[in-house]
């Protein structure tokens, strides 16, 4: 059957109109893909969370510290098999714009809790043994041209002063969902300095990170820990890493909802554009459809022509849009990597793009098909001439 050939030729009968419609679909799919990728990037921390990790912080707010003395009591809670701790350091490299996430952590236990940070054994050992050593993510190291053995200085914002570190390792993520922009150094280095310069801030941690033997114990372990420190000067809030990350996301939930809403609006708008194109097309070809019916072709054939053309145009625009999403997302990630450390087009986004393209093609063809199939042949033939 020459139906496919006919569909493709029909699609390019009005090159300008089809071209503009394709452009519209391409831009819409690109925008839709970018917005969905942005939403995914927002949730990247949540998605990368492990069910085996719990975060303990001050119940009032994350900015209030917890005493270092809690460590041993937490370790004794049934179900806890690993404990680490750390502080958000908030240092900048040379100037403010060179911002990236950096933490003071207990190195050995922290790296044990995060097997997704892939670091060569030699570098790991060197880092653990050097109190002024640091491990940087590959993206940050690449960005600033750091190599193992380099000495770098971070300007403290929360902990004032210039802090010197030796890069002892560069980690890579085990997959694309792992943030490769962070830097870790020894919590002891921070604490010893605090003891000298600001003793009131010494022996305090920003958070504890614990590993549990079984994710099903998360609720029980959390309750036990929080009950242990109830009515103390620093009550705790223990939650899963996912919930902890979610709490950051929920702070910007309104923005996320707006982005998701806009992404849906884009699809609805392009649906209207394609529907308009198909309505114009079908109206112009009513006479031709009448000729097909006169020759004995049934409604299914007319429907195939209109749905086929609509799907062809919308899917062609979708394919071009998806093709453009990858380089645009890569450029976006390069430019705004500081704000979106994990920014890549997920397979799910591609599936959503395709689903949106199919939906647009189908919905846009509904009314023109109904009209073309139901028009009387004699009325259709009268439109010619």
């Amino acid at each position, binding site marked *: *059957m*020459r139906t496919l050939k*006919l569909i493709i*030729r*029909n699609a390019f*009968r009005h090159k300008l109109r089809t071209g503009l419609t394709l452009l519209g679909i391409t831009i819409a799919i690109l925008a839709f893909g970018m917005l969905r990728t942005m939403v995914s990037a927002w949730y990247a921390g949540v998605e990368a969370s492990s069910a085996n990790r719990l975060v303990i912080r001050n119940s009032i707010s994350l900015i209030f510290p917890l005493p270092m003395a809690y460590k041993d009591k937490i370790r004794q809670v049934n179900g806890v098999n690993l404990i680490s701790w750390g502080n958000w350091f908030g240092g900048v490299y040379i100037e403010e714009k060179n911002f990236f996430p950096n933490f003071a952590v207990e190195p050995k236990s922290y790296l044990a809790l995060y097997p997704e940070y892939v670091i060569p054994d030699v570098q790991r050992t060197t880092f653990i043994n050097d109190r002024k050593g640091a491990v940087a993510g590959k993206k940050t190291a690449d960005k600033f041209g750091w190599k193992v053995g380099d000495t770098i200085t971070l300007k403290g914002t929360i902990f004032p002063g210039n802090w010197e570190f030796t890069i002892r390792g560069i980690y890579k993520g085990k997959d694309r969902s792992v943030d490769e922009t962070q830097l870790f150094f020894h919590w002891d280095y921070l604490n010893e300095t605090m003891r000298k310069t600001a003793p009131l801030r010494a022996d305090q941690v920003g958070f504890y990170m614990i590993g549990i033997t079984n994710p099903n114990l998360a609720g029980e372990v959390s309750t036990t820990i929080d009950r242990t420190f109830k009515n103390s000067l620093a009550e705790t809030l223990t939650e899963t890493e996912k919930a902890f990350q979610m709490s950051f996301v929920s702070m910007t939930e309104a923005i996320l909802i707006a982005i998701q809403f806009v992404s849906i609006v884009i699809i609805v708008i392009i649906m209207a554009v394609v529907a308009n194109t198909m309505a114009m097309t079908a109206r112009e070809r009513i*006479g*031709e459809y009448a*000729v*097909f*019916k*006169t*020759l*004995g*072709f*049934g409604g299914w054939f007319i429907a195939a022509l209109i749905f086929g053309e609509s799907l062809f145009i919308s899917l062609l625009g979708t394919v071009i849009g998806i093709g453009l999403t990858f380089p645009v997302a890569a450029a976006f990630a390069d430019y705004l990597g500081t704000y979106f450390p994990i920014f890549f087009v997920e397979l799910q986004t591609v599936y959503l793009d395709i689903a949106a393209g199919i939906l647009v093609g189908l919905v846009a063809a509904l009314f023109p098909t109904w009209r073309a199939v139901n028009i*009387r*042949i*004699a009325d259709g*033939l009268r439109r*010619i*001439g």
Partner: protein
Amino acid sequence: MTDPTTTCDEHGPSPVLENRPVIVEVRNVNKAYLRGSHIIPVLQEINFDIREGEFLALMGPSGSGKSTLLNLIAGIDKVDSGTIVIGGVDITALDETELAHWRATNVGFIFQFYNLIPVLTAFENVELPLQLTGLTRSERREHVEMALRVVNLSHRMDHYPSQLSGGEQQRVAIARAVVTDPAILVADEPTGDLDRASAKEIMSLMCRLCRESSKTIIMVTHDPKAAEAAQVIRNLDKGSLNNAHP
């Protein structure tokens, strides 16, 4: 009921139509259209027969109902009352699907504006009706080439309609109409959009089809010259059929 004439003479002697079986029987056909709240009668109590191999011209002023009558006989419109029996089949009793199948098998259509599909070549346009048959690709090619040979357009089979003259386009349309070898050809103002020379050429071709292939042709026309080619001329006026005359 038919009244044979002596037209199409240059193509050979006229057949004796009376000896041929009736292929189309139109009985008590009425048709009206609804315009807003008004019912406008278009055809009233139409009765006539068409014999096999007859070339009939339907004439009449605009709005007389001739195209409506043609559409009813061709099975692309429905009667309000009455029957139309063609080749023993009461087409007024068929549903849309059956009617579509019947049209594909029994009727070839020639329109005033050719109605070729602009994105298909002459070959592909002629091949269209064959897509509904069970013919293989090579069989279809054979049929299409033969039909294009009949209309003397073999050399232009790869041309698109926009690359053909009006007369050539109408010849492609005739090839499309005859490619399935239907018993009846219906033509609605086939020369209405053509210059005199092309119109003569088309009428000559239709005469040839009638005489050499024994096609029954029903043609609606305003053009008395074109009507001269027909063996029988019938006049419609205000929805009623007047007496036939040569």
